[in-house]
């Protein structure tokens, strides 16, 4: 355990509502950069290729970023600051470009820093405090999906904040509709508030079932809902406002009590958006919205690629260049989704078709 890690954990534990001044963030970011440059050989090689090193990067915005696709380079190229023997945990991305072998891989020695970031920000944005809440989880868990970072997140949240009666309603076989209905019935009868946490896809399935069978609940005040993953995989994606109305109609949870989570395996920290749709980072994360062509800051109001600088990524790479598109907004950014691939051009599609067929 390093002193730097202790400092970062302490920073996270101070709480997500405690601002991290720019100069403090810059100092920590440059320190993390040095730490990663010295310990992570593939990252150092990339930095050298770009002519960047801790000696010549004075601004955290210039710290070389690693594209999320690069994490899919395979087990032979692991971006980790710890020696192989200490990489006890492995999380894998779900997106693939080259079949299962092309899944991104993140290796960590432990989850102390990850958990400190997760729990602190979750308490601030989803729970508005750290009082226990009955959590109904409609997504992966660490026990059943040990390589899912979302599974780890939901499990840790349940361990830390779950009140008695909390449960998991998602397995390898999918949504456990009957059990979830029973849990919602019980919470309604007992007048106990709940936190429904899950993937948007799974919650959509449940909403559809509930509507089909005329089911709705009047959950106790204080109930809240967190969804993650977006709705674009659904056969008929719903606009966010409509989805919020459907949550309200089914669970009696007002839009103000619903948050949308944005995270990725490559990042230790998460972002949360309320009904206004602005993704808020925790204080130890900075996000730049960059013009895709120049990688300079996008003009105000213009969409650009998101690049995150997450201090909690100490064990991998702090600066992550994503394919996600967003617009800079006060306090964060509006997430627009994944950058589309090159648009189809007539008959010249063979390679895209090949890649697509491998993904499916």
């Amino acid at each position: 355990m390093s002193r730097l890690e202790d400092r970062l954990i302490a920073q996270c534990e101070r709480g997500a509502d405690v601002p991290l001044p720019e100069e403090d963030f810059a100092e920590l970011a440059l320190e993390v950069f040095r730490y990663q440059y010295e310990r992570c050989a593939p990252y150092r090689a990339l930095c050298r290729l770009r002519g960047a090193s801790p000696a010549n990067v004075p601004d955290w915005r210039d710290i070389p970023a690693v594209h999320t696709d690069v994490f899919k380079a395979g087990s032979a190229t692991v971006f980790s600051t710890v020696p192989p023997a200490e990489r006890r945990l492995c999380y894998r991305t779900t997106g693939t470009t080259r079949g299962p072998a092309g899944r991104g891989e993140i290796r960590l020695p432990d989850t102390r820093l990850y958990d400190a970031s997760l729990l602190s920000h979750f308490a601030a944005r989803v729970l508005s405090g750290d009082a226990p809440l009955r959590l109904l989880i409609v997504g992966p868990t660490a026990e059943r999906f040990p390589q899912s970072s979302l599974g780890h997140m939901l499990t840790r949240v349940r361990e830390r904040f779950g009140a008695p009666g909390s449960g998991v309603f998602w397995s390898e076989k999918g949504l456990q509709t009957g059990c979830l209905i029973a849990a919602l019935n019980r919470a309604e009868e007992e007048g106990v508030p709940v936190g429904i946490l899950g993937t948007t896809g799974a919650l959509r399935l449940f909403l559809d079932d509930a509507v089909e069978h005329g089911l709705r609940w009047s959950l106790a005040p204080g109930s809240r809902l967190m969804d993650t993953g977006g709705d674009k995989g659904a056969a008929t994606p719903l606009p966010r406002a409509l989805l919020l109305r459907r949550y309200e109609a089914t669970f009696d949870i007002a839009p103000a009590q619903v948050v949308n989570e944005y995270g990725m395996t490559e990042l230790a920290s998460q972002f949360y958006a309320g009904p206004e749709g602005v993704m808020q980072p925790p204080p130890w994360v900075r996000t730049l919205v960059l013009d895709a062509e120049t990688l300079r800051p996008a003009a105000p109001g213009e969409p650009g690629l998101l690049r995150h600088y997450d201090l909690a990524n100490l064990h991998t790479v702090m600066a992550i260049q994503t394919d996600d598109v967003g617009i800079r907004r006060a306090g964060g950014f509006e997430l627009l989704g994944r950058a589309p691939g090159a648009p189809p051009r007539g008959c010249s599609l063979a390679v895209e078709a090949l890649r697509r067929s491998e993904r499916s």
Partner: protein
Amino acid sequence: MSASPAPVLPPAYAGEAAPLAVAEYLYAQAGKPHPTPPAAAEMLGDLHARWAAPGSALRAEAVAALHASSGYAPRLLDESLRRFFRRLSAPRLRRVVRRELRPRTGELIRPARLTWVTAAGNVPVASLSALILATLAGAPCLYKPASAEPILPTLYARSLAESAPSLANRLAVIGWRGGDADLESALGRLAETVIAFGSDAALESLRSRIAPGAVWCGFGHRYSIACVTSAGMTAAAARGTARDVCAYDQQGCMSPLLCFCAADSSATAAFGERLALALARLSRRWPRRPLSLGEAAAIRRLRAGVELRAALGRGRQWLSEEPLGWTVALLPEADLRDAGRDRSLVLISVSGEDDLAARLRPGEGRLSTASLACAPEERSRWTQRLLTLGATRLCAPGRMQFPNPLAPHEGRSLCASLIRRISVGR
């Protein structure tokens, strides 16, 4: 993209501008007096001479409109159009008439009653030869332009209507939203020949709608490659390959997506160096069109993967000075799935023809054009192997995006599909 241009209808047509009504009019033209193919060759040849002439106003208008719509470099567009129309001169068209549109002994020929052409993609001229050959053959032609590129067929049809209204009376250029099942089924019952360019899915849907006896010419997903051996790694081959990459920014199915190098790694790296130099020079004359956010992100993805391999000593990269101008990557372990776009060319070292075949296996059956640069004594061997791999066109570097518009397309003669040969016995 601005609003689609107005349809171009047959000059004598007085009905509404609805695709089915126009198609029925065109269908009814069959059997009516019409210029013969030899006469049509002269009229078309005159028109094409005007399009190809130095300082042509027709070409200048098309270049300006295409540049505004697609962003392609004006000098590229101008050269592409000039070459295209020069190769459609009266003498060349006469030769096509003699070879492909003349009845043989004991035969009569008649044009197909209605030819329906559906174009695709945003590379101008890509499917315009189908329209021109239909006009040459006298086959009434309903041409649906690509939604991304309706400009050139529209301008061409207008110029034809002005210069040769008798020919233009068998031609309509009219667009509609693709996938209109009722309309396309009705057209499919009427058309005697259907020539379609597009995605496999679009073609499959269209084909299910045409009459069983109709002639079907579908041109679906294809890709193209460059092949160069150590003996062929000349400065000229590098310049030619750069032209192939920059012409229409690798958007066409005849653009090289990969360059296979049958040479050792140092020779391949030297070729990469030459290619980078050629791309840098050519990009000043033919600047890349603006990229969408998605296109830029795709290049960033490609570059990220290349950069990592280069950093770890498993590849090399050459990058344009301007952001995302062009990319050359040398990736010894790559295959077809690493192909790039928008001026991103991946060089792959192969040990020989067998290695090439293995790398192309993921795209089996979809190879279109291959450029080949090699020593004369290697040519026959490589040609045979590329043909076995399914290549339908071989050419020298620099000519991939400038095919002969009168040559068979993807190995098939369009002329043959535009006429019917009637055996006349006693």
